[in-house]
């Protein structure tokens, strides 16, 4: 109510809820992307949501950088050798999301016949099918963290009426700066990647959403758009950077769509239903490399940060790089560290130990000290309504938590657990520190379990 006048110079944002956590981006924002190559990599074969890919190499094989090592014939996405070397094992390893999964370990060795991924002439005029195919075989997935196979997202059904591509440069999670650095350092490549995607889905308009705490990245992108003049290309696309307010979760698809276009994706619906496709900036960059250089996704930029790491950095590392060598490359860490996260502090995953590799979806590795994380106990709901005010979707996590606590998870559907996208605004704000996201997950799981039971009994 009192916020009416604080509308941040009229910049757009989503209409409801959201939070302003401390950004901590200054820890790593000014560190240019540095390459880092470890002595060996352990690549989980499951790099996307859905079925794992099938290994096509065996122990002792010699591989070159970019060579296929797991295929998508049984689902999943193709996985490629991030470094040249010798396959040491094809075995069960540790995966940050799936915890235990098949992984291929490669010991790095220089190889003479290593591909250099030069630009391939004529890529601009390839037909749509070829563009999609190159993106598929390169194993491109949503690099914002969702890891959904990109070619599947871009293969729209025939009746889809899409008119706008949104490129997500919001990077609203605290600490993370990998997308910011990419936009600053590779603005033209990101813009070209966006144009390619617009061409594939056949839309004339592309909006690039960037929060106002990254105004310089926005300026770099705008300058790149002007230089490239893609509105006069063979597939003209009107491209525009839209600077939004800095507010979490500005980078969530539905919130970004609302901020940039005013359109509301229906509950449990897809952006496509309101004529929009959203892709992250790193994904756009990967699409360009897949098409222009025929370079598969074998590396990614990872923000290594947190008060617990001595030298925060933005590292470009091969997929499968283990956390230990990354820590060494960043000057080691404090013994004050109590949590290590893959991803941001709002939606990232806490790791059980340091024996885990970077995957295509790892945007950050955060080493959080006791002072900057939350290990407090939780208390009963005091009914302050804060969680209701901050939920971007208008859900009622307070109610869900109270029902779940007394074992009535299956009576919570009307309060929205099935729609909850686990942004964490509610838990973050709760003065009683209630783990509301977790309660939402419990309710969700109960419904899933119930649905499975119904199916088996039917």
């Amino acid at each position, binding site marked *: 109510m009192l916020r009416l006048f604080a509308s941040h110079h009229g910049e757009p944002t989503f209409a409801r*809820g959201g939070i302003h956590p401390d950004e901590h981006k200054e820890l790593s924002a000014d560190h240019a992307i540095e390459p880092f190559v470890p002595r060996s990599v352990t690549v989980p074969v499951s790099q996307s949501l859905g079925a794992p890919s099938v290994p096509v190499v065996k122990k002792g094989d010699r591989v070159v950088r970019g060579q296929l090592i797991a295929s998508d014939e049984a689902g999943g996405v193709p996985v490629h050798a991030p470094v040249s070397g010798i396959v040491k094992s094809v075995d069960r390893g540790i995966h940050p999301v799936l915890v235990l999964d098949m992984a291929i370990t490669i010991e790095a060795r220089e190889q003479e016949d290593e591909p250099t991924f030069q630009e391939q002439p004529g890529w601009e005029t390839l037909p749509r099918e070829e563009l999609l195919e190159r993106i598929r075989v390169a194993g491109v997935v949503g690099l914002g963290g969702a890891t959904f196979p990109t070619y599947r997202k871009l293969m729209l059904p025939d009746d889809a009426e899409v008119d706008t591509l949104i490129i997500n440069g919001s990077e609203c999670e605290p600490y993370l700066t990998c997308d910011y650095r990419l936009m600053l350092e590779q603005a033209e490549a990101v813009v070209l990647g966006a144009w390619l995607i617009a061409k594939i889905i056949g839309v004339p308009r592309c909006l690039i959403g960037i929060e106002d705490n990254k105004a310089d990245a926005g300026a770099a992108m705008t300058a790149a758009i002007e230089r490239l003049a893609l509105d006069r290309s063979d597939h003209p696309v009107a491209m525009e950077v839209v600077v939004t307010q800095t507010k979490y979760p500005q980078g969530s698809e539905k919130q970004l769509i609302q901020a940039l276009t005013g359109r509301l*994706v229906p509950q449990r619906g897809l952006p496509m239903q309101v004529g929009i496709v959203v892709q992250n900036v790193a994904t756009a960059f990967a699409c360009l490399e897949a098409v222009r250089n025929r370079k598969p996704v074998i590396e990614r930029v990872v923000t290594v940060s947190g008060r617990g790491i001595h030298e925060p950095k933005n590292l470009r590392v091969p997929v499968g790089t283990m956390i230990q060598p990354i820590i060494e490359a960043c000057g080691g860490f404090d013994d004050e560290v109590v*949590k290590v996260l893959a991803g941001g502090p709002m939606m990232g995953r*806490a790791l059980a130990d340091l024996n885990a590799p970077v995957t295509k979806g790892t945007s950050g590795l955060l080493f959080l000290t006791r002072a900057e994380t*939350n*290990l407090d106990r939780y*208390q009963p709901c005091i009914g302050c309504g804060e969680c209701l005010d901050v939920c971007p979707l208008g859900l009622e996590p307070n109610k869900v938590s109270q029902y779940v606590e007394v074992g009535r998870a299956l009576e919570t559907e009307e309060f929205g657990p099935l729609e909850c996208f686990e942004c964490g605004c509610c838990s973050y704000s709760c003065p009683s520190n209630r783990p509301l996201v977790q309660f939402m997950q419990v309710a969700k799981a109960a419904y899933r379990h119930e649905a499975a039971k119904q199916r088996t009994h039917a």
Partner: protein
Amino acid sequence: MSMPEPHLYLSTGPHIRRGRTTADIMWLVNLSLAPALLWAVLVFGWPVLGITLSAIAGCALAEHLACKVRGTDSTVYDGSVVCTGLLLAYTLPPGIPLWMPFVGGALGVFFAKTVFGGLGYNIFNVALVGRAIMMATFPVEMTTTWLTPGFGQIGGVDALSGATPLVSLTGGPEAVEAAIVGLPEGMSEGLAFLLGLRPGSVGEVSVLMIVAGAGFLLWQKIIKLTIPLSVLGGALLMSPWSPDPVLYMLSGGLWLGAFFMATDYVTSPSTLKGQIVFGVGIGLLTGMIRNWGGYPEGICYAILLMNTMTPALEEWFRPPRTAPKGTPS
């Protein structure tokens, strides 16, 4: 390089929190109640401090024992019982014997909070239940131990015989005049009520001090204006039935109730519409009780009555979903 393996904690996100805890909020509320207490000490003398401490002690003892019996950590320091004690004391006449607030506080916490399961599970405003118990237990002291306000009399304040001035607001203008005694000479009644230079309960006499504290809570975004404005609006709707609408709006704990009691998180609804209905209901009931029932501090009962409706209001008025219903895909 060998590295120490740290002890890592696991949990789902988010891994950071805003940092304002329930205890922080309660202590900020307590702080916001300070101006009213300072004023009371100034115009009624030191005994009101005794009353306040006695009420807090009663509340704290009951809470502490409850935690002991339940085998949990004592929640005395979370600020919530102190808040209850303060609010209870603020509704009492400044000349009440010091041991009575202790009893009221202890019984209030026990019956309104402990038996419901502690903070967060109570249905009624705990301080107001304590007050209701005291009204039933000490009816004479609760209605006759008024003091005449005035500066420079911190050592000894004149006792005022007779009922609280507001009782007579039901009896027509002459009765009002007759009842309002102890105002500073030459000061208009409205101004005296606004400043708090009139006989009344410990913490509710000065509308100005209450508004100052409330302003702090609004600034800190601990309360919103929805409930207080609804309460005041509802009360205003009933003002035509009052013999003196100005004094009616400035007295009887209306402002203390509107900003500090009706806004109690646990016992009030949390959605906009629910809060409006809740607040207006309190205002209307307050007016009814005071103008027709002749019971001066009607807001206490009005809040307790509307507390009973909170679960229903939570059920009826739900936050609106941001997005329209869709076909699941």
